């Protein structure tokens, strides 16, 4: 009589069924019958074997009949198994929630019957808990301790008794994974069936090699990578290898005592496909096996491959220090190429190889010392030396602004950070492995924020009166960091429509700190080019227009600038030709905003005069403007750099823009 036509939706039950199939060498789950279970029970000496297996208590606790010997429960085990199997039902009013099978006689009833047959008195039977609990089905909950998680706190999960009997075979394939019992669970039953069969074989060999008197320790020899290798081997053997959709859920659980827990690692189909492609690459399959076979490498490798992120062990490195330091050479170039292809970053490789070639041509003596170090890329000086190489290459027309932007860690981050940490590792890798290229690969950075910001400032520099001095300073390593941009922007305001938000986005970080060094370095590359394209000014689309905090802050300073102009016009109106003194105002503002040392003195004076003017006009007593109103950044902090920029920028803008009607009125 067939018990199951196919597998169920319960991973524990399915693994137990697959174990039985493996032990009895069955071709299908439908071949499992009650009589076969009975026969197999004796064939594998299930009671004695389970008593010896250490994994049994992780699966069924030590409160079951095999380990709780107070009531001589050992004799109940065989009786219960036999009673359930001999009286298998496939019809009845009850529906098993685990398997969907119908049945009439409940587990409690069978248990009581088995106790009777084992010679227990009615009184003894009455004192026993005969409910289904996690002693019989792992993690299913017990009325005695998990009642709140069970229906109405007084009903156990409804389970067909045959499932309890079937589960007794699960220990015969239960290996450890992440310190818990492994369950192999997949919608591709062929895959999980084959994996369980291999696990059964492993455990059966272990059982056979140990004396009958000894207990069988848990098998904890395999890592996640090992199990994945098994899966890949199995999939490779399938004829429909390419068409099968395979995912894998690897359960790790324990049902033991107070340490009951469960977690499931999901290995999605796309990750299996990636691993398959690497595995079938004859140039790297041995290397991949080595990585997956070691716990310390397998986890990080699989995680990185799944998330399409950089895997740190691709690159040469040194672990530990002193005499215990271990030098690691990194993966093979073939593996590197294959990995980068799988994570969709192949386009980085030609550039890295090209820069490795530039290093050979332009390296300094100091750089040579770094290059011979396994983990040279990790030295803070590496970036400095590499930048020197790139500047020299630029001067020889072998490098340029767009190529440089292409290697930045974040091409869309403003203010610009001239860091290329990801490339440093890759470049050092190819230098280390002596892989180079002389071909400069095509670059696609047109729509990056960094390129747009560079073009924005370059266009202003190119039109500035002091363009040659600025270029000279930017290309001079000793002067580069000193070059500022405020004066260039203020002067450009006369002919160019610039928004304050653009300047803030390019030069200030999220906390409104001034950050110009990345920009200066990148501009050094551009102005070191032998051929420098002329750029037309183009406004940046800044998201800061939607930043309410910043907009309110700008509006406040703009209001001061307007008040100051109103004061100024009020005082000097009619002093010349009788009209508004625009030119005089401009001539006052220009030296004001160029002033650095006396700026605060002048600002205090401007605030005082403006307040006096407003008090007279509006007949009020209180000052409208205070220094701290203007010298507090949008976040309310006393960060004067951005405040000075905004006051100067908006005063200059006010001196240029036509007077608004509201001011006249």
């Amino acid at each position, binding site marked *: 009589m067939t018990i199951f036509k196919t597998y169920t939706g319960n991973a524990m039950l*399915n693994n137990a069924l697959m174990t039985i199939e493996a032990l009895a060498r069955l071709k299908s789950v439908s071949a499992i019958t009650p009589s076969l279970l009975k026969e197999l029970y004796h064939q594998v000496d299930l009671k004695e074997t389970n008593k010896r297996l250490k994994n049994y208590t992780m699966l069924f606790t030590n409160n079951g009949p095999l380990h709780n010997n107070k009531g001589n429960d050992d004799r109940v085990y065989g009786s219960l198994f036999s009673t359930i199997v001999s009286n298998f039902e496939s019809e009845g009013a009850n529906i098993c929630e685990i398997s*969907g099978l119908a049945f009439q006689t409940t587990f409690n009833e069978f248990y009581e019957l088995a106790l009777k047959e084992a010679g227990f008195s009615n009184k003894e039977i009455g004192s026993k808990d005969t409910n289904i609990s*996690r002693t019989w089905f792992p*993690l299913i909950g017990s009325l005695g301790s998990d009642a709140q998680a069970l*229906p109405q706190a007084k009903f156990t999960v409804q389970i067909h008794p045959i499932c309890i009997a079937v589960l007794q075979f699960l220990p015969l394939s239960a290996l450890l994974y992440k310190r818990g019992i492994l369950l192999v*669970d997949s919608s591709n039953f062929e895959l999980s069936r084959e994996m369980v069969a291999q696990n059964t074989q492993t455990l059966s060999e272990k059982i056979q090699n140990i004396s009958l008197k000894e207990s069988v320790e848990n098998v904890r020899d395999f890592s996640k990578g090992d199990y994945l290798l098994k899966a890949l081997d199995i999939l490779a053997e399938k004829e429909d290898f390419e068409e099968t959709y395979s995912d894998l859920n690897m359960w790790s659980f324990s049902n033991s005592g107070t340490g009951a827990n469960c977690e499931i690692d999901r290995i*999605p189909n796309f990750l299996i496909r990636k691993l398959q492609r690497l595995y079938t690459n004859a140039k790297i399959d041995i290397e991949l096996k080595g990585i997956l076979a070691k716990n310390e490498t397998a986890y990080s490798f699989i995680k990185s491959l799944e998330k399409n992120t950089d895997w740190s062990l691709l690159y040469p490195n040194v672990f530990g220090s002193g005499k215990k330091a271990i030098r690691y050479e990194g993966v093979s170039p073939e593996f590197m190429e294959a990995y980068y292809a799988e994570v969709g970053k192949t386009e980085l490789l030609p550039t890295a190889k090209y820069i490795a070639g530039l290093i050979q041509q332009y390296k300094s003596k100091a750089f040579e010392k770094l290059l011979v170090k396994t983990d040279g890329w990790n030295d803070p000086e590496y970036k400095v030396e590499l930048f020197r190489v790139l500047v020299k290459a630029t001067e020889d027309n072998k490098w340029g602004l767009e190529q440089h932007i292409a290697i930045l860690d974040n091409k869309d981050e403003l203010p610009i950070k001239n860091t290329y940490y990801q490339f440093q590792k890759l470049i050092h890798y190819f230098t280390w492995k002596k892989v180079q290229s002389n071909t400069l690969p095509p670059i696609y950075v047109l729509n990056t924020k960094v390129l747009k910001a560079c073009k924005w400032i370059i266009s202003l520099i190119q039109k500035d009166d002091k363009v040659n001095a600025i270029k000279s300073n930017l290309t001079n390593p000793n002067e580069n960091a000193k070059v500022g941009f405020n004066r260039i922007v203020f002067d450009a305001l006369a002919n160019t429509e610039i928004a304050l938000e653009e300047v803030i986005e390019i030069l200030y970080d999220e906390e409104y700190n001034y950050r110009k060094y990345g920009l200066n370095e990148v501009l050094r590359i551009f102005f070191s080019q032998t051929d420098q394209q002329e750029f037309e000014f183009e406004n940046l689309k800044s998201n800061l227009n939607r930043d309410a905090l910043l907009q309110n802050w700008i509006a406040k300073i703009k209001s001061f600038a307007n008040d100051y102009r109103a004061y100024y016009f009020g005082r000097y109106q009619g002093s010349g030709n009788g009209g508004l003194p625009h030119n005089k105002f401009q001539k006052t503002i220009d030296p004001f905003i160029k002033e650095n040392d006396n700026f605060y003195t002048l600002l205090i004076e401007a605030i005082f005069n403006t307040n006096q003017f407003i008090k007279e006009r509006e007949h009020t007593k209180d000052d409208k403007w205070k220094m701290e109103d203007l010298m507090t950044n949008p976040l309310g902090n006393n960060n004067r750099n951005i405040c000075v920029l905004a006051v100067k920028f908006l005063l200059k803008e006010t001196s240029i823009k036509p007077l608004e009607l509201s001011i006249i009125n």
Partner: protein
Amino acid sequence: MDKLLEIQLSGWTATPRLPFILSGNAICMHTPSYSLVLGIIGCCLGRVVHAGEVKLGFKYKYDTAAQDMETRHRLEFDGKRIKKHSKGTDAYMREFHTSPKLTVWIDRLDWKAYFDNPIGTPSLGRSQDILKIDKVTIVRVSKIEKGNLGGSLLPFTTGVQAGGQLVQLAEAYLENNEVGSGRTPLASKVFISIPHDNGAEIIFNNLYETKEEIPVSFYLHEFVK
């Protein structure tokens, strides 16, 4: 069928538990079960909704799975009565989903008013996993043969080209008449709970898609009557 009632719900947290993992910690299924969604509908209607009353489709997604450590006030049943556990409370790890979004499609257009003004507060999992109803609309749909079913729960048959978690679930439950006598599970089947980030295109029966600028495909489940 060319029109369905679409109800969009969202919340801060949700706990669609993986059934039958009751001891130790709690872990989540990638999607809620049909019986759970039926319960949410019943909550809005203010009564028990029976499986035969409605055809039901849903899509479920969330930001991430996180873990909560909760104090559990344990109970035990001694065969006669439910009482506080003799060992008192314990700490319990619970997995939960953050920022859940559940879109439900049902063929009962006449129930729209209940979702506009729900009688109960719907929740997905624990009592604190409350959902708000973002939108209730009647949408035009058309039948399709193949669709992206990430975030769905499909009856499993061998050969379904989808990855996810296989689960044995009762489609729905029938409340027993006698108070305190529990409920009866109906039609226990194997389902596959497909994670929302699994974008595989699947050929399946009873697939529909909404007629919108960006159509959404879903499976409409018909309960066993």
